[in-house]
């Protein structure tokens, strides 16, 4: 069964473009959410989330990422033009794709997230910054 991806993005055309990339990569899009309530409502049905930082209800991206990771065990990748805005919330995520993104960055990051043990050290993906973390069964803890 292919991995299900939640897209948290409030710009519909950007979200649709990501949706196409996700499908081209061979994954399913479980939902597109434009704010925190919508994102959490769809959380049960997905494995990976691509999360923008500034959404319809404000800069809620970082907290959504934390909640998706800690409460639902979802692998989170932020997609943003302002990586510095992630702050403490990087603890819960695999990494960040910087906007503007290339479709290859999204594809490669998704494949990384879908792996049993994502090998972040080995990740050499243009436009993707991995957060170096030691894995644990429930969540991810920052090393830095």
């Amino acid at each position, binding site marked *: 069964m292919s991995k299900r991806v939640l897209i948290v993005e409030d*710009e519909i*055309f*950007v*979200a*649709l*473009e990501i949706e*196409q990339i996700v499908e*081209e990569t061979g994954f399913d899009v479980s939902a597109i959410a434009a704010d925190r309530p919508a994102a959490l409502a769809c959380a049960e049905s997905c494995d990976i989330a691509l999360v923008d930082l*500034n959404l319809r209800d404000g800069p809620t991206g970082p907290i959504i990422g934390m909640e998706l990771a800690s409460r639902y065990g979802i692998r989170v990748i932020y997609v943003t*033009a302002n*990586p510095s805005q992630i702050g403490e919330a990087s603890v819960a995520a695999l990494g960040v794709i*910087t*906007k*503007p993104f*290339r*479709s290859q960055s999204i594809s490669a990051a998704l494949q990384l997230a879908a792996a049993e043990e994502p090998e972040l050290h080995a990740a*050499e993906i*243009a*436009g993707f*910054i991995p957060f170096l973390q030691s894995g644990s069964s429930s969540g991810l803890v920052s090393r830095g």
Partner: protein
Amino acid sequence: MADHSGLGTDRGALLALYDLDAGGFRHLDEITAFASTLCDAPIALVSIVEEARQRFLARTGLDAEETPRDVSFCALAMLGDDIFVVPDACGDPRFADNALVTGPPHIRFYAGAPLIDSAGVPLGALCVIDTQPRADLTPMQRQGLTLLARQVMVELEGRRRDRDVIARQRQDAAAIADSDRMFRTLADTMPQMVWSTLPDGYHDYYNARWYEYTGVLAGSTDGEGWNDMFHPDDQERAWGRWRKSLETGEPYEIEYRLRHHSGDYRWTLGRALPIRDGAGTILRWIGTCTDIHEQKLMMEEREMIAHELSHRIKNIFSVIAGLIGLSARQHPEIGAVAEDLRDRILALGRAHDFVRPHSAESAPQVGQGQGLLWGILDQIFAPYNARDRSRIALSGDNVPIDDRSATPLALLFHELATNAAKYGALSVPDGRIALHIAREGADVRIDWQELGGPAVQSMQPDGFGSRLITLSVERQLGGRIARDWSADGLKLSLWIPTRSMSRSVGTE
């Protein structure tokens, strides 16, 4: 003599200077007592000649305190320079009929030394009187009487000086009171709140407006009580700023929320300057509080609108990029072109965000290089430098840019970096780029040097990208460009007029 020269109409005013009515001439009594003994005369007087009378400031051997001026011997004695002697008044036609001669005290012998002030004006005489005629005083008595007369003047001048000092003090006090009244009137009619402190910061004055605004009782905010009037969240910050000014003497300026008598907190601009003496020592601090609540709210609203607008513009760039991506997926044959176009548009989006007008709140943090070339380069190179900041290393000068140059500069460096990522130094893990910027005459010279990349093909890898670079530099910025494909990698030099980089710099 009869014209009483030196006794003009201002005599009353002149004598008033000595404050004779106040009395208390104890030393003069000692002088007449001694003059009487010295001259062996029963009567000795200090006589001051006024308009209509002569008054005796001190007297020995006589009860009368004054006599009419027309019978005065002293009025004549004071007009000479030396001692005036009448050996026998009865035999002198000027005095034979004088009431003081025919009646008590029955003057026969008179000797008077003139009392002359520092300006040469005669005030009266120190005289001795005998009821027996005499030829004259002895030389020692004359010398003594002259000396004593001088001592009388020392006493009188001293009195006059004291009086002057007191008068001046009164004048000064009145002037200070006037100036104080003027300050308070000025301060109380100002639209601002005005306050003042001692050098140690102790508040000892507030104008009427302060009490009117805060509604507190006069004097209740003296000392450090002012701080309680500030919003709790602003108190510590205000204290810190004020303490720093007190320590350094630097002007105090701060915005804080001040409690209005209605209970509301209103934004207020507080400022203060020290008043120093000639040696630079701070004597006082004078401060004002200006209600800026309305302006502050307006600024906040404007800031919010600007922020919202900028956010929307940024979104439009994202949406355009998304639309291009979506469209391209319907037409795979234009995929590569669309991807490039999409990236270019997003680079422009970054340039917009970098040079848009910012307020203090929305401006990127200091160090992000707002309005400077290095700042926009950081933005454009962020995707390439994300993991290793030295992949594209900047060196040299940092020069100002503006909104007009931001667009071509963003395109230019986006193309250079994209090409490097596709074909040049950034296409291999160990490749890097050295970017050096230097002012060179009226130009800014930029050297782009790719190192450690794949072997260079001397053909242009991307015709349109290269054309965009040329158009941006030559047509838009009015600069020139030199390319050199050496074996090490692309070496590119740009010369861009400084005035094209930033209008404000160009007009200096």
